[in-house]
């Protein structure tokens, strides 16, 4: 595949991520911060997000226990995850966290358990999508091309 085709593929792919709500405008903010001084900024921040989220999701899995749940602690973890996902533009993860926090407040353990599954699912989805996006970028760079500048027109 030649570079032009790969670039078009990248544009279509990232556009679909915005249309489907996986990413929001904050992700564009991240891309705009990438420059010659920090050519890998987006990948670095997103990698931090992956590491941090996986840890939080593990902690959440342990903290939600039908025998006894510390809702304050659960809420604190979800708050962190909501913050990180919001900061990188992972909109669906963020929204799942917002719903989760409401149930924490209600101390509804079964709903919290369902929310956790939902958050995990959204996290897995966006992780796959972003990894695919980064792979496309690597292919473009390897072929000597550059990543197009993304403009949101909707």
């Amino acid at each position, binding site marked *: 595949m030649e570079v032009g085709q790969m670039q078009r593929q990248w544009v279509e792919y990232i556009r679909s991520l915005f249309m489907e709500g996986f990413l929001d405008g904050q992700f564009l903010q991240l891309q705009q911060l990438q420059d010659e001084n920090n050519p890998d900024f987006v990948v670095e921040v997103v990698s931090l997000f992956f590491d941090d989220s996986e840890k939080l999701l593990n902690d959440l899995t342990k903290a939600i226990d039908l025998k006894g749940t510390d809702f304050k602690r659960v809420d604190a973890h979800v708050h962190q995850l909501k913050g990180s996902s919001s900061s*990188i533009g992972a909109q669906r993860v963020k929204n799942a966290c917002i719903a989760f926090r409401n149930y924490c407040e209600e101390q509804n353990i079964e709903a919290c358990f369902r929310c956790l599954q939902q958050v995990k699912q959204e996290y897995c989805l966006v992780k796959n999508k972003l990894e695919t996006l980064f792979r496309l970028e690597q292919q473009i760079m390897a072929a000597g091309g550059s990543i197009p500048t993304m403009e949101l027109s909707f």
Partner: protein
Amino acid sequence: MENGDEPHVLAVDDNVIDRKLVEKLLKNSSCRVTTAENGPRALEFLGLGNDQQNILKGNEPKVNMVITDYCMPGMTGYDLLKKIKESSTTKEVPVVIMSSENIPTRINKCLEEGAQMFIQKPLKQSDVKKLTCQLMNCKG
């Protein structure tokens, strides 16, 4: 402000992603940045730590602005703001509070305690540019 004299900002946030983001945003606005992951570390850096007393007197690093997250475990951004405003060495340093939650009582509380500004997260380049412009104007 002399040429080459970039403002030095202390950025405090317990979230590693947000620390990286605010650092980059500030650097893009020509600031020198030091980050801290919690209130106590920030106070230590400012020479206000528990064990420091008079040890650093006169040798504290010059900080032109502190930008801190509100929600942090242990010492909140509000607690940190109070401590900074209570000390004669740092009370003139502008403190900006960041929060993902838009709660009027929280915002008012911070502004009443002397916060320069309250910014909604997630942070954007335009927010930070506005801040640093204000800061440069103050210095100039």
